[in-house]
C-alpha cells in the first residue's frame, strides 16, 4: 500500500462516525443534568468508534497522562463525568454513517460480532487468571479488533463489496482477499490507526496481529482475542463478513489446555452476555 493511500485511510478514520444508536443515547444522556456516569460509560464502552476515540484522546501526548489507558472504565476514572460527557458529545456531533457504506455493511451484525468477541475475550482472560480490571482491556481489544473493516466499508465501499462477495464462498480467507484487492488487511489498518492514535502498545499489537498468530501463539491478550474471535464465529454471534473458523494454533490450544469445543462448553454465560448486547442494539434500532 503506498503512502498516499495510507494517508487517505488514516484521514478518513478521523471522520469516522459512531453508530447512530450510541450517538442518540449519548446525546440524550448529555442533555440530562442528572446524567449518571455509569449509564454514559455503559453506552460508550459498547461502541467501537466511541471507545477508540475516547482512548485516543486520553492517551494523546496532548492530554499527557502518566500511564496508558486501555479501557473506558479506566478513562472514566481519570476524566470524570463532566469531561467524559462533553467529549462524548463532541464526538457524537460527527455525521451519521453514509448510506452507501451502511448498505454494504450490516452494522448491527458487525456490532454484535465485535461485542461477542469483546465479552468472550474478557471471559477467557478471567479464565486464565487475569485480574478483573485488566479484563476490561481484553474487552476493548475484542471490541476494536475489526475496526479496520469499518474504515474499508466507509471509505473504500466498492473494494469492500468485492471482498465481501468473494468471502461468501466457503474456504476463502478474508485477509488474503483484502491483500489482493486493497493491498492491506483490516488488521493492518486497525494497527496503523491504533498506533497513530497512541493506543497502548498491547492493544495495538492485539489488533494488528489478530489474524497472524504463529503456531506458538502470542501474548496472553493476543491468544484470548484469537480464540474469542473463532468462538464468536463458531457460535454465529453476529458477523463481520468472515465466516471461516480457524483452528487454534498449538500454542494457543496449550494455553487453554482444552479443545475449542470444551472451551465453548466452559463459557456458559457467554450467551447471556451477548444477549444483553443484542437487547441494547434492538433498543437503539427501534427508535
Amino acid at each position, binding site marked *: 500500500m503506498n503512502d498516499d493511500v495510507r494517508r487517505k485511510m488514516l484521514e478518513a478514520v478521523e471522520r469516522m462516525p459512531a453508530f447512530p444508536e450510541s450517538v442518540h443515547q449519548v446525546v440524550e444522556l448529555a442533555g440530562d443534568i442528572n446524567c449518571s456516569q455509569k449509564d454514559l460509560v455503559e453506552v460508550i464502552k459498547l461502541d467501537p468508534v466511541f471507545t477508540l476515540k475516547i482512548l485516543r484522546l486520553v492517551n494523546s501526548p496532548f492530554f499527557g*497522562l502518566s500511564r496508558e489507558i486501555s479501557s473506558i*472504565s479506566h478513562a472514566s*476514572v481519570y476524566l*470524570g463525568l463532566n*469531561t467524559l460527557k462533553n467529549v462524548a458529545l463532541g464526538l457524537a456531533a460527527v455525521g451519521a454513517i453514509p448510506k452507501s457504506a451502511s448498505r454494504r455493511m450490516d452494522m448491527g451484525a458487525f456490532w454484535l460480532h465485535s461485542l461477542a468477541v469483546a465479552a468472550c475475550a474478557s471471559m477467557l482472560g478471567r479464565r486464565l487468571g487475569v485480574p478483573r*480490571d485488566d479484563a476490561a482491556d481484553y474487552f476493548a481489544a475484542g471490541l476494536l479488533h475489526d475496526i479496520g473493516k469499518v474504515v474499508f466499508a466507509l471509505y473504500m465501499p466498492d473494494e469492500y463489496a468485492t471482498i465481501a462477495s468473494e468471502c461468501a464462498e466457503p474456504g476463502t480467507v478474508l485477509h488474503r482477499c483484502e491483500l489482493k484487492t486493497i493491498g492491506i488487511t483490516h488488521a493492518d489498518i486497525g494497527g496503523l490507526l491504533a498506533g497513530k492514535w497512541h493506543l497502548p502498545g498491547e492493544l495495538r499489537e492485539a489488533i494488528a496481529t489478530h489474524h497472524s498468530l504463529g503456531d506458538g501463539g502470542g501474548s496472553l491478550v493476543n491468544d484470548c482475542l484469537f480464540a474469542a474471535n473463532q468462538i464468536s464465529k463458531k457460535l454465529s454471534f453476529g458477523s463481520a463478513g468472515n465466516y471461516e473458523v480457524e483452528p487454534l494454533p498449538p500454542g494457543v490450544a496449550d494455553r487453554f489446555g482444552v479443545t475449542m469445543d470444551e472451551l465453548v462448553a466452559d463459557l456458559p454465560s457467554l450467551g447471556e452476555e451477548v444477549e444483553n448486547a443484542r437487547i441494547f442494539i434492538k433498543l437503539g434500532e427501534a427508535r
Partner: protein
Amino acid sequence: MRIRFRGTRGSLPVPGPKTVRYGGNTTCIEVRGDHGGLLILDAGTGIRGLGRELVAEGVASCDVFITHLHWDHISGLPFFLPLFLPGRRVAIYGPADPLNMTGIEAVLDRQMEYPFFPVRAAELSADLECRTLADGETVDLGFARVSPLLMNHPAPNFGYLVQCDGKSMFFTGDHEPFVNIYSPEDRDFEMYASLVEQRNRAILDRLRGVDLLVVDAQYTSEEFAVKRGWGHGSMDSALEMARDAGAGLVVLTHHDMERTDEDLDELEARLRAKWKGSGVRFELAREGLELEL
C-alpha cells in the same frame, strides 16, 4: 518556604461584613522561597491585591500555576497588574482543554475576548509565557520544583506539589474523592473499585509525608452526601486525606460562598471535637494567613 493565602473562597467572591475574617476573594495562594523566588497558585480574585504589591516591590518575574479553568480560579487574571507592564515576565502554567484541543495559552485569549473585556490578551505589555502541563511532569523554577497531578473535578484539574527549601506542600485545587460509579450488585463493581483504589493510591503515594496539604473542603459531610459529582470534597474527607498521606499540617480552603465567618467558626469547633486525638493538625484557610515551613 513561606505561604500566604490571598483568596480562600470557592465559586464567587463574597465581600461584606459577614466574610471579613475568612475573606471573600476566590482562590489564590502566594508561595515564596526563603532565599527569593515567587510562585502563585491560581488566579482567583485574590491575585489582584498581590499583583499591586508585586509591582510596588519591583518583582520582575513571576510564575502562575492554574489548577483548572473554572472562573473562581482565573477571574483575577485580567486584573493582575504585572501583565500590563512592559519589562515584566509572567509565565502561566496549567492543564489543556481536551474538548477544544487548546492549551493553557487559550485561557487569557478567550477570557479577554471582545466583548467580554476591554483589553485583548494580544495587547498586554508584559513578556507572557504559556506552558501547558502534563500529569506527573516537573517544572524546575530554580528555587522550587512544581509537579502537576491530575485530580478529580468536572474539568481537568491539577493539584500541584511544590518542593522548595527542603520542604514540600501540595495544593489539590478543586478535588472530589473518587467514587465507584457502580453499585455493589453490579457486575463491574469490583473492577471499578480496583481502578478507584489505584487512582487514590497513586495520588497518596505522591503526597506521602508532605509538610503542608491545602485541600478543597467546601462541604460538610452532610452537604457532601447530596452533592456527589459536584467536584468538591468535604472537611472530613480533607482530614482523611491528610491522615492517610501523613501530612504535617492540613489547611482547609475553598469555603462555600454561603458560609459566614460565624458559620466557619462553628464548623471548625465541630471538626476539632470530632478529630480530637486523631493526630491530624489542621487550620481553616483565612485570607492573609501566613505559614512558614
